[in-house]
């Protein structure tokens, strides 16, 4: 549908929406660059100040933010790699292999996405302390080694890009299932697997609830857990908090800028077919 007259108005409105999307990020950067006392002034600041480096230094002095970044990086990368490997294998099986009960098993996978597993944290915590995993990174990694989203996403990718004929040919030539996957399936879906990896990395990087419970905030925090510690000083120090928040969102924003087209495309494709 097109309507030439509403054009400027429409674009004006979208610019406003975009501004609302970006403003909180911009503002946290502004506050992060100010002396905390400036925030007590009547008019909220809208231009950056000169205290950014100082505030960031204070973040690293207040909590072990290096350790937190390192932990988040380990967690997010492991979760991303494992979801890509296991998700691609499972997606390949659901899309291109014949086996009994395939379609109903896939429906089960989709159904699990609706299960509010967050409500099981009490026994999950007990399980982790039985395993002696409290405060260790595997406690946050292992439960999300493979998620339904990865299986769904890679099945979609395989359906679209892996040609049936090539698989049949490889099988006739005596290739095993895994070799067929490795030589025919995986090369075809590499781009989608990369997007899944980045997307999973972001999700794991942002996770808050479970890391807060099972990690020791003083000993083995992730970035998000460290952020909640920053917020708990004797008085509310917004420059400090938002300097931390600015660093914490940086890797994710960088990935998003690089991959926004693919992520948007992926979300929209999933919406129509799912």
């Amino acid at each position, binding site marked *: 549908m097109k309507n030439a007259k509403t054009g400027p108005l429409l674009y004006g409105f979208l610019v406003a929406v975009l501004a609302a999307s970006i403003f909180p990020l911009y503002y946290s950067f502004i506050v992060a660059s100010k002396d905390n006392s400036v925030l007590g002034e009547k008019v909220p600041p809208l231009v950056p100040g000169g205290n950014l480096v100082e505030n960031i230094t204070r973040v690293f002095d207040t909590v072990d933010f290096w350790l937190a970044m390192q932990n988040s990086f380990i967690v997010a990368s492991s979760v991303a790699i494992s979801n890509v490997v296991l998700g691609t294998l499972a997606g390949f099986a659901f899309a291109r292999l014949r086996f009994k009960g395939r379609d109903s098993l896939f429906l089960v996978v989709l159904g699990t996405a609706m299960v*509010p597993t967050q*409500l099981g944290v009490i026994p999950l*915590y007990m399980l982790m302390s039985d395993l002696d995993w409290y405060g260790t990174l595997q406690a946050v990694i292992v439960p999300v080694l493979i998620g*339904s989203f990865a299986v769904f996403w890679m099945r979609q990718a395989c359906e679209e890009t892996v040609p049936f004929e090539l698989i049949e040919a490889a099988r006739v030539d*005596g290739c095993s299932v895994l070799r067929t996957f490795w030589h025919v399936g995986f090369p075809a879906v590499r781009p989608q697997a990369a997007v899944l990896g980045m997307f999973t990395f972001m999700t794991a990087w942002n996770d808050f609830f479970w890391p807060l419970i099972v990690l020791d905030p003083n000993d083995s925090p992730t970035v998000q857990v460290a952020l*909640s510690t920053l917020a708990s000083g004797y008085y509310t120090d917004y420059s400090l908090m938002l300097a931390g928040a600015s660093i914490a969102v940086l890797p994710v924003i960088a990935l998003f800028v690089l991959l*926004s087209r693919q992520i948007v495309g992926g979300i929209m494709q999933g919406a129509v077919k799912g």
Partner: protein
Amino acid sequence: MTVTRPETEAAPAVSVSPSKEPKRFRLSNWDAKYTPYLIIAPFFVVFGIFGLYPLIYTAWVSLHDWQLIDGDQGFIGLDNYVKLFGDANFWNALFNTLSLFVLSTVPQLLAALGLAALLDRGLRGSAFWRAGVLLPNVISVAAVALVFAQFFGRDFGIVNFLLGFVGIDPIDWRAETWASHLAVSTMVMWRWTGYNALLYLAAMQSVPKDMYESATLDGAGRWRMFWSITVPSIRPTILFTVVTSTIGGLQLFAEPALFDPAFATSNSTGGSDRQFQTLVLYMYEKGFRLFDAGYAATVAWMLFLVVLVVAVINFTLTRRIAGKG
């Protein structure tokens, strides 16, 4: 010759018994049959151990006096549930959960619908606008909560500053129940509106264009076409977002948790007087601050039922409303 006979017998693979097949063929047969199960197994194992089992076991824990550190102190039947029904904090958290859910989800999905309709109008640079509306969704909820905590500050927050222009006195966003619910809902809306708009947009783009053309010939206006063609056509997607937003919206945790500056330091959560304590926050408080695992499991299991009931109600309602026309 003598060797030809056994060879011709072995050739048609179907008629041969398994034991006489060449070894390699047997292996590949096993491979084709069972490898698929092996490679989908990790998902089911992980989900079973770390998702389904804890959720179900929660019901069992709720029937016990169970301390997080000291362990099981014995079966007590429905005692925890009896206590829960007489617990004013539970009803308060239930009210907050439902209120926050309605305040954040209903305007959010309507706004997403409107935004999707705008994005569907053949824009220039569509990729740019789409990325722009999705951006809030990739920002961590902890970071979002910290920024919005500043926005909604009583003395120096930007929201009160702006309200001052239209002559509204500063609002103490954390002290008042309704004010705090509005503030927390704003965070949720900020993060999720664009995401849902993209889902709607995708569905709108697959509506056949000739439906609109014939409606235009019949003299239907844009507003009418939106409600009688677009909305019914994207009904499955609307239902999907309603159900997922219900499941997510009833389990709010990080937004209300970090909206309270005393979250990390005090035992009670969700405001000085629990003004914005949700059920997940209450479960967290009982389980991981006061170590009463049995009672926390009871809260969790009740919330599970609430999620189930509300999801079914919303699904039915939406199907009816969106299906008209």
